[in-house]
């Protein structure tokens, strides 16, 4: 402390003698060191008072006392700063805890993209925070039927991640059931409505592809509509479906529809994080995505996913604010 006192007094008297910007710069640098040494503001006032008294031995007593008043009131600022240090430590601990939690979450939600000859599948899912609130679940039974569930939990962070565990659990239990989207969505809806907090809802797009018949059957629960490109007609179609978010009401039915896929057709399934940007001139987000898909249609499904992400991420307007998930089925 004596050391700090001497240094401070030198810096202060230099300033009072010369009053240059350089003195102030040196003073601020000195204070940074003090703060990192956890010196409190009331101690700094005390050091200042003592330095002033040394530099001006004829200092009026009143001015001396005025520093005592300043010291007294600075104690409260000091208290707030001490609380700050404590909070910083807590924050560090929590950060490390969330890192481990994220690792575990990622393992629980790990999914392999099926590699098949008859259909090219690609997937990319980028979370906005540490824990992903979107989840893609593939099911490949004996290579005759490939199914995919694209799920988006309404909400972010830890609660969303836990809710997602419930969804995965439900999908795992349904593994050997029939693959009808209607049925799957109905059952999941009941599980989620019963099990999870009243304020947590889940949107899902469920599609199942019958390889032999090249038939894609899909249903949706309040989810961002998928995009279907028909190569022969060179036209895009929106795959919508009337269906309530999962978990709102116990008894809900979900319609399902079929599409026949021909060579060079593709289906893009996304979550709403992908369309979360402003109109680009005349084009609204879904049009932008359709054009983008066409422009990289020559690439593999996986490369298409990555291209779309890179392009959209670099749009000047695009402030990624939600988990970003895209799945592409390409014949």
């Amino acid at each position, binding site marked *: 402390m004596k050391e700090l006192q001497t240094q401070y007094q030198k810096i202060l008297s230099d300033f009072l003698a010369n009053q240059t910007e350089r003195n102030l710069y040196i003073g601020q640098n000195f204070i940074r060191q003090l703060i990192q040494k956890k010196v409190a503001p*009331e101690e700094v006032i*005390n050091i200042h008072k003592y330095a002033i008294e040394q530099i001006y031995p004829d200092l009026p007593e009143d001015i001396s006392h005025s520093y005592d008043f300043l010291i007294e009131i600075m*104690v409260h600022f*000091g*208290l707030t700063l001490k*609380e700050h240090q404590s909070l910083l430590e807590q924050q560090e601990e929590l950060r490390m805890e969330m890192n481990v939690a994220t690792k575990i979450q990622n393992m629980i939600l790990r999914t392999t993209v099926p590699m098949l000859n008859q259909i090219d599948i690609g997937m990319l899912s980028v979370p906005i925070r540490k824990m992903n609130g979107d989840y893609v679940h593939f099911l490949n039974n004996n290579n005759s039927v490939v199914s995919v569930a694209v799920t988006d939990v309404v909400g972010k962070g830890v609660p969303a991640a836990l809710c997602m565990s419930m969804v995965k659990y439900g999908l795992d239990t349904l593994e050997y059931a029939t693959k009808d989207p209607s049925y799957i969505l109905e059952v999941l809806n009941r599980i989620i409505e019963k099990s999870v907090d009243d304020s947590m809802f889940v949107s899902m797009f469920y599609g199942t592809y019958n390889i032999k018949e090249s038939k894609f059957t899909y249903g949706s629960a309040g989810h961002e509509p998928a995009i279907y490109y028909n190569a022969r007609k060179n036209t895009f179609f929106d795959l919508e479906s009337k269906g309530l978010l999962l978990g709102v009401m116990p008894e809900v039915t979900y319609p399902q529809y079929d599409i026949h896929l021909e060579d060079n057709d593709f289906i893009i399934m996304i979550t709403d994080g992908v369309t979360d940007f402003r109109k680009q001139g005349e084009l609204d987000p879904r049009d932008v995505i359709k054009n983008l898909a066409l422009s990289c249609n020559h690439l593999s499904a996986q490369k298409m996913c990555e291209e779309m992400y890179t392009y959209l991420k670099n749009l000047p307007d695009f402030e990624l604010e939600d988990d970003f998930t895209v799945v592409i089925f390409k014949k």
Partner: protein
Amino acid sequence: MNAKSTVEIVTEWDIVAARQLGRNEAKAIGFGAVDQARITTAISELARNIYLYARSGEVTIERISNEEKVGLRIIAADKGPGISNLKKVMEDGYSTSGGLGAGLPGVKRLMDTMDIQSHVGNGTTIVIEKWVK
């Protein structure tokens, strides 16, 4: 020879009296200006809590010493409602201090040691100590 004085806390100005006593004792023992301010602030917080939450209580200030050093012990005792969730009260955060850094965690940081005995319906006794370094 341990000097010991007690101030009863009933009105807001008793808080001032307790502060005054604390400051005098701190000065007499040899605490510097900053520590005088901190001890006084700690006494102020404890006395304020008694004044605000317990019907009445008292603050006792006692000089303490061991072979190496001297110090001050302050005992704030009341027969108020008692603290139901001690852990929560000692946690930092907006709820406990309103962002002021005050409250019991703050008092603990101003002093060297703090000990709390409290039971619901039976009052609270807080003992804080600070040694001259």
